[in-house]
């Protein structure tokens, strides 16, 4: 049972009304809304870097050249004297001005005192006055007339540092005797959690037919978007306005208010109408954002910071980077009886907020689609001298899914089972199912989804074909993976106890005297077509004219408090249905009839009383209610608006089955993905075109994280992959030659339409093991592939090792 619904019903039975007519969200004209559509095609998008304010100045940050050390002195004389420079600030200046240390300065940044796990978040200042913790950490800021001049002045800063040997290996970091990197993080362990079965394993492992002990590793990688960060801050008449590419404007507002010591009522955060991708990477409150806000207050002029690509890669946030040591007990039929996992996450250094711990925590508590009677996971988050970790889609899931899906294949190989057989044998079949980790799986059909994938991908046929081709000397293989996706991870599994942030969705609908409607959402979309979705849902459920809707997102002044990644679709539907009842109430009074819902039909801004056919326009109704309330019964309030909050009654879970057919060119270590199959449980497909696109993108990200993207540090803690040539992202020519995408849906009762919103978020997690399992199959099982990303040299080395061993390809 969901233990995080606050008192007061956020979900009532009457909200889940009949679902007769499907809201048209994509069959015709998928891009109704300009912010989602035509503007983006004609170069009229409004992104952060497009914002111009009179008198605006540009900031550039000086960044630490070393991974670990101390600042001895910063001489700013030359920089201050440089052309166009208005101001220079260092950590020492800010520490004097903003004495609060983070993250404790704001509860929204800090983990809750109710958290069941042991955690220690490092304290830090907005700019380091003294100790430096990773290469690329901002340590001073220059404000100048334009970015060119600001960068010139940054070069003129004379920064004297004392260098120390960095700690770069997470296991070394956690070992006793390692130097402590932060005063308040003993043992360099930011978080320790033990999850799972309360009772002991007993003789489970001793008596098992097969015990596998394996280490799986997913190195540092992520899903950074194409647009980096941007902030514009303005302080006027006691009011601070901050435009920011933040996925959680309401949270940022509270954090800034706390840090800068001004009331939240005087802070307004606005996420631009268009954000060039987020993927979680734009969720944290980065220190730079607060520094820019502080500068605007100090200088009395608008200050802007537009991050460049090198900064974005160095500053973080990074993700994945976990080591999973698994000990698994199987019976002779392949049933997984028990699983013990030791997880070490390398969370980097100055965690921008407790979101730095979220990926690891989610990984450790992620339910697998398998019925595992006994399961324990021990998680430790290690601090190192690298960029901080933070959520990157699919937050936290990739290393966990990498580990379990590789484990299943490794076990299948040893037990002489097919990859499909072992999974089918272990899938959860009865729902709801509570995993030993506390997660609840619901409303799903894993067997059915996997069967459909095996069918549409013709998996067994291809498996046979691959075997035959291997006999002829080709290196072709097929592989499978399965993964659960959780839609409200923050709420589930006691997560609400950990984070000091609300998990609910919220939206305000307001009708104006002319019957037009504005939708005000605290959400800050970054390309999920939310504007269109909200407009269409509202038009459908409220019955107003689609053309008369305006959607406002990301503005804390207009919207109720909410978090990001919430079920905007459902909360919009609920608010619209409630507003519709209000509209009907007014109309019924004007028509002198009873307000029986079923007697009224609302569409395109017209209301019809079906028993006798009388009509009223929304304009007439709204005008009466707002401008002439004397027409209404005593005590009626002259407004037609509705704010709805939604916390799902339980966290819906979705699921996807993946398959890959891969050809390996072992002599040079490159692969070609001949075919990729995906069958997902979407609950209910609302926007087929948008869904297909998002799934394709998820597959692309998954492939990119398997073979291309990696944050690599050298032995001095310098980020080698600090530009887009070295941090390589997948291009069009590297997509699978064939894509087979289908769905097998089980609606969830936890959303208004039964949709499982984040089916698309989790896609990348299944891709890596599907491809890896296919590569291993291509070698007839003779390679030991446990670590990704997998560059050509590494794949070549694996192949060489296999060739040198006795096993011949099947």
């Amino acid at each position, binding site marked *: 049972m969901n233990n995080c619904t606050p008192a007061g019903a956020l979900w009532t039975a009457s909200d889940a009304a009949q679902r007769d007519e499907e809201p048209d969200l994509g069959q015709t*004209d998928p891009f109704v809304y300009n912010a989602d*559509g035509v503007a983006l*095609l004609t170069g009229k998008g409004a992104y952060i870097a497009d914002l111009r304010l009179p008198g605006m100045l540009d900031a550039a940050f000086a960044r630490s050249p070393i991974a670990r050390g101390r600042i001895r002195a910063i001489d700013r004389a030359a920089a201050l004297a440089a052309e166009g420079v208005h101001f220079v600030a260092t950590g020492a200046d800010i520490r004097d001005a903003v004495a609060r240390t983070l993250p404790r300065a704001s509860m929204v940044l800090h983990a809750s005192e109710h958290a069941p796990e042991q955690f220690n978040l490092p304290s830090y200042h907005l700019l380091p006055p003294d100790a430096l913790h990773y290469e690329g950490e901002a340590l001073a800021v220059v404000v100048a007339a334009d970015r060119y001049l600001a960068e010139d002045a940054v070069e003129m800063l004379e920064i004297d540092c004392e260098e120390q040997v960095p700690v770069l290996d997470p296991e070394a970091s956690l070992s006793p005797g390692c130097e402590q990197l932060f005063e308040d993080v003993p043992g360099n362990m930011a978080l320790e959690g033990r999850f799972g079965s309360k009772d002991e394993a007993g003789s489970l492992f001793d008596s098992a037919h097969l015990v596998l002990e394996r280490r799986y590793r997913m190195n540092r990688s992520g899903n950074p*978007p194409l647009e980096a960060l941007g902030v514009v801050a303005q302080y006027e008449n006691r009011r601070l306005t901050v435009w920011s590419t933040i996925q959680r404007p309401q949270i940022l507002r509270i954090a800034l208010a706390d840090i800068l010591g001004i009331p939240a009522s005087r802070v307004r955060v606005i996420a631009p109408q268009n954000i060039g991708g987020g*993927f979680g990477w734009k969720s944290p409150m980065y220190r730079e954002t607060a520094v820019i806000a502080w500068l605007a207050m100090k200088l009395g002029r608008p200050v802007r910071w537009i991050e460049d690509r090198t900064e974005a890669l160095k500053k973080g946030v990074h993700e994945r980077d976990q080591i999973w040591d698994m000990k698994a007990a199987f019976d002779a039929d392949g049933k997984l009886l028990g699983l013990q996992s030791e997880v070490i996450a390398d969370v980097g250094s100055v965690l921008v907020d407790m979101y730095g711990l979220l990926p690891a925590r989610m990984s450790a508590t992620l339910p697998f689609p398998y019925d595992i009677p006994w399961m324990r996971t021990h998680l430790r988050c290690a601090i190192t001298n690298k960029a901080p970790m933070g959520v990157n889609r699919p937050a936290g899931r990739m290393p966990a899914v990498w580990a379990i899906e590789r484990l299943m294949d490794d076990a299948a190989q040893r037990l002489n089972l097919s990859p499909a057989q072992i999974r089918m044998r272990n899938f959860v079949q009865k729902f709801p199912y509570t995993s030993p980790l506390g997660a609840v799986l619901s409303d799903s059909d894993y067997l059915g989804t996997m069967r459909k994938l095996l069918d549409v991908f013709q998996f067994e046929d291809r498996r046979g074909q691959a075997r035959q081709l291997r006999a002829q000397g080709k290196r072709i293989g097929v592989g499978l993976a399965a993964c659960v996706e959780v839609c409200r991870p923050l709420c589930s599994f006691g997560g609400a106890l950990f984070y000091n942030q609300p998990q609910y969705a919220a939206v305000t609908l307001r009708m104006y005297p002319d019957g037009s409607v504005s939708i005000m959402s605290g959400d800050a979309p970054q390309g999920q077509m939310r504007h269109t979705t909200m407009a269409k849902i509202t038009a459908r459920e409220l019955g107003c004219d689609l053309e008369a809707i305006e959607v406002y997102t990301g503005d804390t002044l207009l919207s109720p408090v909410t978090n990001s990644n919430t079920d905007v679709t459902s909360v919009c539907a609920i608010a619209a249905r409630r507003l519709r009842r209000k509209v009907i109430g007014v109309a019924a009074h004007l028509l002198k009839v009873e307000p029986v819902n079923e007697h009224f039909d609302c569409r395109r801004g017209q209301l019809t009383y079906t028993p006798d056919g009388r009509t009223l326009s929304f304009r007439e109704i709204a005008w009466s209610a707002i401008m002439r309330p004397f027409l209404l019964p005593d005590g009626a309030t002259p407004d037609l608006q509705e704010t709805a909050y939604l916390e799902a009654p339980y966290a819906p879970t979705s699921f996807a089955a993946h398959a890959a057919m891969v050809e390996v060119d072992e002599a040079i270590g490159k692969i070609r993905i001949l075919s990729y199959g995906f069958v997902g449980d979407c609950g209910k497909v609302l926007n087929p075109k948008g869904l297909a696109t998002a*799934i*394709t*993108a998820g597959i*692309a990200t998954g492939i990119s994280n398997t073979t291309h993207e990696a944050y690599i540090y050298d032995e001095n803690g310098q980020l080698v992959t600090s530009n887009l040539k070295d941090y390589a992202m997948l291009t*069009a020519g590297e997509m699978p030659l064939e894509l087979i995408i289908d769905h097998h849906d089980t609606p969830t009762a936890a959303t208004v339409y039964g949709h499982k919103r984040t089916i698309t978020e989790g896609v990348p997690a299944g891709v890596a093991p599907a491809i890896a399992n296919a590569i291993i199959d291509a070698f007839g099982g003779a390679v030991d592939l446990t670590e990704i990303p997998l560059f050509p040299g590494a794949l070549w080395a694996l192949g060489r090792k296999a060739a040198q061993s006795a096993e011949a390809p099947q």
Partner: protein
Amino acid sequence: MAETTARRTIPISMLVNGCRHHLAVDPRHTLADLLRDQLGLTGLHLGCEQGVCGACTVHIDGEPVVSCLTLAVEAQDVAIRTVEDLAQDGALSALQQAFLAHGAFQCGYCTPGFLMVGQHLLDQGLATDRDAVREGLSGNICRCTGYEPIIDAILSVAQQEPRA
């Protein structure tokens, strides 16, 4: 702060979306920054500033270039075309319409670059098959679509229209 000294600027003249502009440019300013900051053509976007992501692609004399690796001062006497010029008389181009129809964009940040490169492929008759389009798009990165809908959109136009 030192007084802003009069920097040496170079006068240049260029045609942008059919309009002639006479400008005084700082020689180190890139064409990308000039178009965005001085001419307000913010359709092109900066994703990497090293010519890898293609989000800043514009046409110079009908050919695609990455404007982040072009100095503004080098654009003397050229004809530049940006994404703002693709729609004519308020009507979307065939390619823009195809992007709508095929769901070929989400966040839109890379989209202007893909439209300029895609339009060029179509103009040159290079969008012959899927592989040819993939090759043509090798200099454009997208994080939101997985490329396939973009390729669909470009091919759909190539197959509709007779070759230029």
